[in-house]
């Protein structure tokens, strides 16, 4: 330890620092520009992904067991509550079916192909999560072999949870909407208020303490109320229209008092994601 800053060690440290900064810059650039990382990285990720299943499958199994026991305790109460909802749901479902059919007929008549709302789903399981406090990122077990591409939106349970940020052959990384970084993906979203008017906007940030995503830069004068539903708008990029994000929790002015800031409570539970589906626009 006495000769810690001897010449040789100092040189090694400086060289390592330069290589480190270089590698970081390179990978950020690749992440921002290209669809998938270089072949060596992809290959390594695929191998690691396979090996990871040895550990993650039993771990997820154990947690699944706990959840099952917890569910069993709550079953009765939940059953009572759900019974009342089921009838309502069937009605909506039937109506939905009829409308969908009508919609496709009308599309055919008007000779419109696929619109922004049509998308397919690729189902995937979550292998693991990045152990880091600064990146909310999960790794799923489907990759480019299954047709996943970069920037595709990812849905879990009730709504949108994030988008694909890196694609390998057999697994891919998904950045969650709870990621606070400035350069993470922005979603084009819209809000339909009680008067059936549409307000367009972009998700600009995430409020960690309240677990709410912030839809910013809204200059429209339309009234926005608590409880209005927010969905993706399908404008720009590969994200289809009509993926549910959540309900409005709070409306505030931005820092300069010029535009509105809408706080949206995500419908999906971002801390309990086991299976996801990736939406592919047709």
């Amino acid at each position: 330890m006495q000769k810690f800053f001897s010449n040789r060690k100092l040189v090694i440290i400086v060289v390592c620092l330069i290589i480190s900064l270089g590698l970081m810059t390179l990978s950020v650039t690749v992440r921002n520009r290209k669809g998938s990382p270089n072949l060596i990285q992809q290959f390594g990720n695929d191998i690691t992904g396979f090996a990871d299943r040895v550990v993650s499958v039993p771990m997820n199994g154990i947690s699944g067991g706990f959840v099952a026991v917890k569910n069993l305790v709550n079953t009765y109460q939940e059953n009572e509550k759900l019974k009342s909802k089921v009838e309502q749901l069937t009605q909506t479902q039937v109506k939905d079916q009829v409308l969908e059919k009508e919609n496709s007929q009308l599309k055919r008549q008007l000779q419109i192909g696929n619109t922004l709302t049509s998308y397919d789903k690729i189902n995937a399981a979550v292998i693991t999560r990045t152990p880091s406090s600064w990146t909310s990122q999960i790794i799923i077990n489907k990759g480019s072999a299954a047709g996943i591409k970069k920037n595709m939106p990812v849905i879990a349970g009730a709504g949108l949870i994030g988008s694909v940020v890196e694609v390998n052959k057999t697994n891919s990384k998904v950045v969650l909407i709870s990621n606070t970084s400035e350069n993470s993906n922005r979603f084009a979203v819209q809000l339909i208020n009680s008067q059936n008017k549409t307000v367009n906007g972009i998700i600009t940030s995430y409020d960690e303490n309240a677990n709410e995503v912030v839809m910013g830069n809204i200059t429209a004068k339309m009234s926005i109320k608590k409880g209005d539903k927010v969905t993706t708008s399908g404008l720009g990029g590969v994200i289809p229209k009509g993926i549910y994000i959540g309900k409005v929790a709070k409306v505030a002015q931005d820092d300069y008092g010029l535009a509105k800031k809408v706080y949206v409570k995500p419908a999906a539970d971002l801390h309990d994601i086991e299976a996801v589906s990736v939406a592919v626009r047709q």
Partner: protein
Amino acid sequence: MRRRIPVAAVFAIGLFIFFFLDGSISQVCSGLLYAAPNSLVPYLTVLWLVLTDFFTNSRKLHLLMWAAVIGFIFDMYYVGILGVYVFVFPLVIYLGQGIYETMPRNFLSGFLVYFIDITLTIGLDFLANVFIGQVEPSATIFLVNTLAPTLAINLLFFAVLYFPIESLYLKYRRRG
């Protein structure tokens, strides 16, 4: 008759198991560990590397090289940004070795070394993330919401796993 397993094999298998456990624990307990605004990040990989350094002949095992390898895989597989842990892990282990050599070999000095190691790991990771614009450079976010809770959970892991891993290595070292 038990078969003889070399220490190196025990180390390598353990390294990968602990590496994958980091991610799996994060995934399974994400509601607990990453409940806003605090985040408790498990660093079991560092724990395994540090304890291996304490209980085995780390020079013979090429521990620093292994630390770099697992750091590289960590960067590639978990984070997707290369060049952070590949240097942080060996550096932390190297400094830990230096400090541990000057102290009596017992649980408490190990505890102290691990405390320093984890602080360094999180600190350097934070710097790297500030550099790439992933996180805003805020002292409160770093100290209160990340460093303190992460240290707490990792020192807990250390206290729980110190003696089991010691006896595991003792067993294999005696026979191997």
